[in-house]
């Protein structure tokens, strides 16, 4: 479609404006991480680097980051396994209730976090507690994995739709067993989708707070929970800004890699 120059300029402006709006709050976060004013007063009363120093020495933030990484990685790993299996079943097989499966998989992410959270909380209490498994990292991982599965499912599904089924057939035809077909043909073809899906799942888990609140045990403090607690602490809010600013800066790398790996697609699907 050939757009007129004006149309292109307008579209460009809307996009630029949109992106600007997306980034203004982030810039503010960055700015506030240097704001001498503890409660983010606007305009800043002065600039200081003490929050950055404080953040870099904050064991709490470091531990929370570690917990979040652990939870995110574990949940992503489970999601990758389960999501891939489900995507395979749905996209490479025909069976009764095929569409219901994708419907059900979407539920955990579509239902409000608070509903999922209290449901999981209630279930863990009635089921896990009696057998001696308390709330902790494990329960957080279970909660996160549940809504991460659909992300992987969607990414792998989209990829499977584009990989000609004849590739796997050609492999079998040439004498490859199922696992060989997976190792030599299917997995390489899906690798970038796995990465993109995994990254998005990880990001989702990394930023989750509601379900986490209801599934975390004592001492299990993920980064968002740490942020939540520290926003309510008298002297900590600026340190939170430092952490957030750092996260944004650091996250560009994996996001960019994911985009590169899956340059043929939109790179990640929700």
């Amino acid at each position: 479609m050939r757009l007129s120059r004006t149309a292109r300029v307008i579209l460009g402006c809307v996009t630029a404006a949109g992106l600007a709006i997306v980034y203004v709050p982030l810039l503010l976060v960055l700015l506030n991480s240097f704001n001498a004013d503890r409660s983010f007063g606007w305009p800043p009363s002065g600039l200081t680097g003490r929050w950055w120093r404080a953040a870099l020495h904050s064991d709490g933030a470091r531990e929370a980051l570690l917990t979040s990484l652990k939870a995110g990685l574990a949940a992503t790993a489970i999601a990758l396994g389960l999501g891939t299996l489900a995507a395979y079943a749905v996209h490479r097989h025909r069976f009764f209730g095929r569409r219901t499966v994708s419907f059900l998989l979407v539920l955990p992410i579509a239902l409000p976090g608070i509903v999922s959270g209290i449901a999981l909380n209630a279930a863990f209490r009635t089921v896990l507690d009696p057998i001696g498994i308390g709330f902790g990292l494990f329960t957080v991982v279970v909660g996160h994995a549940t809504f991460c599965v659909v992300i992987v499912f969607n990414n792998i599904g989209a990829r499977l739709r584009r990989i000609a089924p004849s590739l796997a057939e050609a492999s079998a035809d040439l004498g490859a067993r199922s696992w060989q077909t997976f190792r030599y043909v299917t997995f390489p073809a899906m690798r970038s989708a796995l990465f993109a899906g995994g990254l998005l799942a990880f990001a989702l888990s990394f930023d989750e707070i509601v379900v986490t609140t209801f599934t975390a045990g004592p001492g299990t403090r993920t980064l968002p929970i740490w942020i939540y607690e520290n926003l309510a602490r008298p002297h900590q809010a600026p340190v939170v800004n430092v952490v957030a600013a750092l996260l944004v800066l650091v996250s560009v790398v994996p996001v960019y890699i994911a985009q590169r790996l899956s340059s043929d697609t939109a790179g990640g699907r929700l």
Partner: protein
Amino acid sequence: MPAAPTPGSRLRLTALLAPPLLWLTLAYLGSLAILLLSAFWATDSFTSDVVHTWNTDNFHELLTTPVYRTIALRTLSIAVAVTVIDALLALPMAFCMARVAGRRWRRPLLVAVLTPLWAGYLVKAYAWRVMLGEDGVVGAALAPFGLHGPGYGTAAVIIVLAYLWLPYMILPVYAALERLPERMLEASADLGAGAWRTLRSVVLPAVRPAVFAGSVFTFSLSLGDYLTVQIVGGKTQLLGNVIASQVTLDLPMAAALSAVPVVLIVCYLAAVRRAGALDSL
């Protein structure tokens, strides 16, 4: 082309489906069932202990108390508004990214849209709180035009939620636009349609499922949110807040309240599934 069932493939299918479905059922659907079941229990009003006597009082109260209806409607309207705003923003942005910007620009633009997802939901919400405050950036930016910022309240909630969920809308719409064959657009132009016409008759119908897919996120995430409301909502109260405030006091009532978004979202999903949204997620 999905293969038809044969004995061998049925076994494989079972092997493939069993783990995810088992997980889903045990970890999630089971939990949901337990929760919804507990909506039929009562609570000791003083100790907040759940009393296991079967009754429908919670639902009765839910349906007869006007304030719940008001809150449910307000929540629904906010979710709809957020979804509409995001769709209106995402369409031109995704279009520009996928079809107007040069190939070299696509990846950086997409990265730019995705990166904020990592900044932390609470941090962003608090940043907006600062921006929307009386002396905030928004007020300062609007002042020269003689305008006031929206302050804290429903409008602020809509703005911030729309901001938070925007990437979730852009992503599927972008994917759909990128997949749209150039041929379709050429065919339309070839038959005499100008850019606007092509947009309306060819592009929009093609991205509709993707918009619905994105709306699954914007709609349901808005429907259940309660933290953003606490931060910028002023005195606004949404379903999520009511559920959150009841959870610790009266779990059965919270469960009954939870049934409201569950029903809304299941209906919504069923509706958009027909439009092919679930395949475009």
